C-alpha cells in the first residue's frame, strides 16, 4: 500500500545530483501535518523528496529506500512507537546495504529515547520544536 511521489525542489541545480530523501511515516500513526511541513521545507532546500504516505511497515521503508536510491532515510513519528519501529527497521536497512546512508528521525521523541535512537543508527534526532532549517542543514552537512 505504498504510495510514493517524487517532488522536485524549486532550487534545483542543473547537472548536479540533488540529495534524495525518503520521508516515511512509520507504523500506524496518522499525524501527517508535521511530515508534510518538513517535506515542503526539504523541497525548498533543493532536495528531492520521496514521501511514502501513511502506515509504512519496516519492510516497505527498507525496500523503498533501496529502490529509490536515496541518500537520506527520514522518519516522522508522533504517536510514540518510534523505538519498536526503529529496532525493526535498522537491521533491514543494514541488510539492504544502506548502513552508509544518513538515517534521521523527527517528531514526538522524548529526550530519554534519543540515545537509544542514535545507538540504532539514527544519527539525527529532531524532537518537536526543532527548526526546519536545522533539519535541512544537518542533511546538507552529513550526506556523504
Amino acid at each position, binding site marked *: *500500500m505504498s*504510495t*510514493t*511521489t517524487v*517532488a522536485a525542489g524549486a532550487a534545483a541545480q542543473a547537472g548536479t545530483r540533488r540529495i534524495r530523501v525518503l520521508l516515511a511515516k512509520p*507504523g*500506524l*500513526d*496518522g*499525524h*501527517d*501535518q508535521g511530515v*508534510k*511541513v518538513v*517535506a*515542503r*521545507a526539504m*523541497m525548498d532546500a533543493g532536495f528531492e523528496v520521496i*514521501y511514502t*504516505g*501513511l*502506515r509504512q*511497515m519496516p519492510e516497505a521503508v527498507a525496500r523503498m529506500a533501496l529502490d529509490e536510491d536515496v541518500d537520506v532515510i527520514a522518519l516522522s513519528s508522533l*504517536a*510514540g*512507537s518510534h523505538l*519498536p*519501529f526503529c529496532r525493526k527497521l535498522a537491521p533491514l536497512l543494514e541488510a539492504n546495504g544502506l548502513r552508509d546512508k544518513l538515517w534521521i528521525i523527527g517528531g*514526538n521523541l*522524548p529526550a*530519554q529515547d534519543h540515545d537509544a535512537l542514535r545507538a540504532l543508527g539514527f544519527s539525527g534526532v529532531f*524532537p*518537536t*520544536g526543532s*527548526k*526546519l*532549517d536545522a533539519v535541512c542543514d544537518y542533511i546538507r552537512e552529513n550526506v556523504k
Partner: protein
Amino acid sequence: MNDRLSPELRPVINESGLEVQPLYTAADVEESGGLEMLGEPGQYPFTRGIHRLMYRKQPWTMRQYAGFGNPHETNQRFKYLIANGQTGLNVAFDLPTQIGLDSDDPMAEGEIGRVGMSIDTLRDVEIAFDGIDLAKITVSMTINGAAAILIAMYLAMAEKRGYDVKQLRGTAQNDILKEFIGRGTWIFPVEPSIRLVGDTIEYCAEHAPKYSPVSVCGYHIRESGATPAQEMAYAFCIAKAYADEVIRRGVPVDEFAGRLSYNFNIFGNLFEQICKFRAGRSLWAKIMKEQYRAEKPGSMWLRMIAAGGGGGLTFEQPEMNIVRGAYYALISALSGTQTMALCSYDEAYTIPTEYSARISLRTMQILIEEMGLTETVDPLGGSFYVETMTNRMRAKMEEIMAEVDAAGGIVKLVSDGTIQAKVSEQAYRMQRNIESGAFPKVGVNCYRNEKEEDHPVEFHPYNEEDARLQIESLNRVRAERDEAQVARALARVSADARSGVNLMPAIVEAVKAYASVGEITREMVQVFGRYREPIRF
C-alpha cells in the same frame, strides 16, 4: 478599509484573513450587516446560543479525552475522572482499533494500548464501562474508520446491561472525511466510507434516536493548518455531504439532523475564535433552515464540543501550556459550547498523567465555580467588536463554502487531495512564520528561557505486558464464542456490504456474536478495498 487607522499603526490581519481595527463602533456593526442575525438565545438563528438559559440551567459537560492500555486500565482512569467531577467521558482508542486491526495482527505490534484503549471484541467494551452508569455519564467515542463497529458494540453493551437503547445518549466521532484531510485513521475508500457514515446515521435515527452518531470535526482540519474560518466552513461542507447521503435514502431531514454534532478547536486569537463560534452557530442554522428546509429547531442547532487547543500548545516551557489552557477554556466558555475538553499541558510530550488531566479538569471547574462564566448567557453579545467580527466571520465562511462548491464540492476536493494540499501549504507557511518570529509564540520565538530547563513532565510508560494480556484475552473470547454463529454473522456482513443495504444490522449481529473489530473490518475490506492516499504538494 478602516479610515480611522492612523498611518503609524501597522494593519492587523487575523488568521482567517480579516482586518482587525483599533476601535469598533455602532457604525461598524451596521456596515457589517447589523444585528439582523443576532436574535435571542434559544431562538433562530441561535447566534447567542442554542438554549434560552444556557449555562445558567446547566454548565457545559466536562469531557477529558482519556484511554490507554487495556480496557481494565481505561476503566480505572474513567472512574478516577468521574470521581474528580468529570461529567462525561471521551474515549481514546489505540491505533490498531482505530484502523480496524485486532491486537494479534502483525501490524499492531508495538501499538497495542499505546495512544488509547485497545478494543477487540464486545467483551472489551463491557469491561471498559463496567460500573459506569450510562444514564448519568454520556460517552463520546473518538472513533472514525471503525466507527460503525464501535457504535454497534456500545449499543450492544448498553442493551445487555438493561438500558433502553431508545433513551441512550452519547456520541461517536465517525467523521471520516476529516480523517482523509488530517488524523489519518481511514480504512476504506471515500465512497464506501461515506456510505458507512450514512448507514450509522440512518440506523441510529431509527434504533437509537437520542444517540449522536456523528461529530463533524473542524478540529483536526484546523490542526492540519486550516484557518478558523476554513475550519468551520469545511466542517459544514462535510456535514452537508453526510446529510445529503442520508436524505438521498429518503430519510426526512428532521429525523436525523438534530443528532448531528460538531467538534471545533479553541486555540488562537481569543476574539476570532469566539466570533467563529457565534458566526458558525447562525450560519449552520441558516443552512439547515434555508437549504434543507428543516423545521424542528433542534435540526438547526450547532451542538458542539469546543475543545482541545493542542495546536496552540508548545513543547518549550510546557508549564505555560497550563496558562494557555485556561485562556482556551475561557474561549470555549464564551463560545456557548455544550461540551468542553482541554488538552493537558504535557500533551506535546506524552499521554496525560492523572495529575495533568486533573489540572485540565480543575481549570474548567474554576471557570464554573469562581469566575461567573455560567451566570449570564452570551456575555459578549452586543459588543461592537464581537458583533462586527461575528458578521465578518460568517461572511468569510460563506465565501469559503461557495468556493468549495464551485470547485466541485468537498467530496471531490478531499478525494483528489486539493484540501489536504491547501491546508498543508498553510501549515508550512505558519511554521516558517513561527520560526522567523513573524508569528509570535511565547517561549518559542520570544521570551525564551536563556537556558532550557529540565521539563517537569512525567512520561506515561508503555506497558508491553498489557499487549500480551490483551492478545490473551482476545484468544480466550475466540475460544469461548460460538464459531458457527460468528461465521454466519460475518457472511452476512460480507453479503450486505455487497448488496448495498444498510450494514448496521449485520454489524450489530456480528458484534453480539463476539466477532472482533479486525474480523468484521476484513469482511468489509474484501468488498470495499482500501483507501489510497492522494499525495500532492
